[in-house]
């Protein structure tokens, strides 16, 4: 076993272990943290495939941003663990059937007939100075420029929709205007009243 193989099996083992823990562990915060570990090991595998841009983007986007917000929501949930266990036996047969179906489907499609190693030539190794990021950028902005632009437009629509859905009008919500706050002078707020000192009665 070469060193590369050892690293590959290490990352794969961690990935599978973490993925299994995500769905078996009871505590949702721990599940989210195991998902982070799974993403991280997947990124490690991608680095070994010389896809360093995708790997780092995975860590940056999913680990650095998406999962942080996930954790945020999950941490504030008040989950009763006992209720999660209810109805396990009830759902078991249906769940088992669905799981079996999915395994069979994946076996048919992802089996060696379509995705076997013999169907794909070994990708050529690249020189040390090869920049994955540059190649990806060239592809995105030449060959796939229209799909890329359309995807960005869809994202823009989603952003605007999210803002439109969650925005409340200014009149209904109480808010502060820091621009006005910093312009406040002492004369507007403070009134000095001179009073004669009281005499001791």
């Amino acid at each position, binding site marked *: 076993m070469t060193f590369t193989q050892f690293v590959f099996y290490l990352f794969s083992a961690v990935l599978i272990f973490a993925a299994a823990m995500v769905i078996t562990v009871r505590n949702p915060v721990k599940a989210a943290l195991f998902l982070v570990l799974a993403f991280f090991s997947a990124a490690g595998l991608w680095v070994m495939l010389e896809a360093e841009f995708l790997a780092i983007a995975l*860590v940056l986007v999913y680990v*650095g941003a998406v999962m942080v*917000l996930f954790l945020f929501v999950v941490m504030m949930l008040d989950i009763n663990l006992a209720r999660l266990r209810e109805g396990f036996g009830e759902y078991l047969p249906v769940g088992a059937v669905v799981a079996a179906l999915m395994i069979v489907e994946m076996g048919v499609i992802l089996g060696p007939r379509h995705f076997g190693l013999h169907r794909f030539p070994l990708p050529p190794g690249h020189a040390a100075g090869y*920049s*994955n990021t540059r190649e990806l950028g060239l592809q995105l902005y030449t060959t796939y420029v229209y799909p890329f632009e359309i995807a960005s437009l869809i994202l823009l629509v989603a952003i605007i929709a999210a803002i439109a859905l969650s925005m409340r009008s200014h009149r209904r919500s109480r808010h502060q205007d820091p621009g006005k706050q910093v312009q406040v002078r002492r004369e507007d707020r403070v009134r000095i009243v001179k009073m004669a000192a009281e005499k001791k009665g």
Partner: protein
Amino acid sequence: MIAHLEAAWRGFPLWSRLVLGSLGGIIAIVVPLMIAVAYLTFAERKIIGYMQVRIGPNRVGPRGWLQPIADALKLLFKEIIIPSSANKYLFVLAPVLAIGPSLVAWAVIPFTSRLVLANINAGLLFILAMTSMGVYGVIVAGWASNSKYAFLGSLRSAAQIVAYEIAMGFALVGVLMLAGTLNLREIVLHQAGNIAHWYLWPLFPLFLVYFISGVAETNRAPFDVAEGESEIVAGFHVEYSGMAFAIFFLAEYANMILISALTAILFLGGWMAPVGVAPFTWVPPLAWFLIKVSVLLFFFLWFRATFPRYRYDQIMRLGWKVLIPVTLVWITLIGVVMFFAPWGGVVR
């Protein structure tokens, strides 16, 4: 003698030479970094002391020079108390998650044109990914402590870090556009020449945004609501004691130095001398780099001594409504200039 050593070195198998070489490099970075962190705390207390017209620590060793060593020893010998209702594994894991990314990011920092541990092509992305991981230490610490103050502190901090990361990332896009590479070493080489070639000038607003976001990212004053001792005691690490607390401390200061180093590399020409004539070129490149980093670190301390703490909603407003629009406008402007103007190539 050297020939013997070389022969002995070649006697090792290749993998062990790689491992030993990397290990040596890591130690050569981390040990000076930890010493720098220790003396940064000393510098902070002294500088803020003088700014507030007091003397600062001056009891341990000559002029107080051994104060950080004494502090480290004190923290080492203190007991680490794990709260009985805390989640034990995550409670112990949190400091590790905090310090790991802040040390790993140093792997791609070029100290001079030859002194870099891993000169990778996607260096800038790597830095972004690693710094975005730092927030987990804070979140996990706050949640695992099972304490209201810690939890509130970690929520504040996480929201703040996620918000300012966007402004930070956009500020880096400007650097990327001018340099045309993600490799940190090449970014510095693009700024070769004198002070006029530094990215500080064409990217001045982005420089400000980056540095301000950097201060916010590291939870330093005036953005330190995550600790806000007047409101939530000490924030996310209120339940930590001894070395576990010290590790959070180390992570915060290592991050400060990291942000300063990055600002020096991206906007201030890294190890380049400001003017390429005689008295300036006598100073070695590494010294120039360290000087720039020290000046930026001084700004961190200066901010802390000068500004009162921001209110939380104002922090969010500054991040989302001021810094991010500034970066977006400036990126567009640079793009237009580079594309249309006949002198656009000059900027590049």
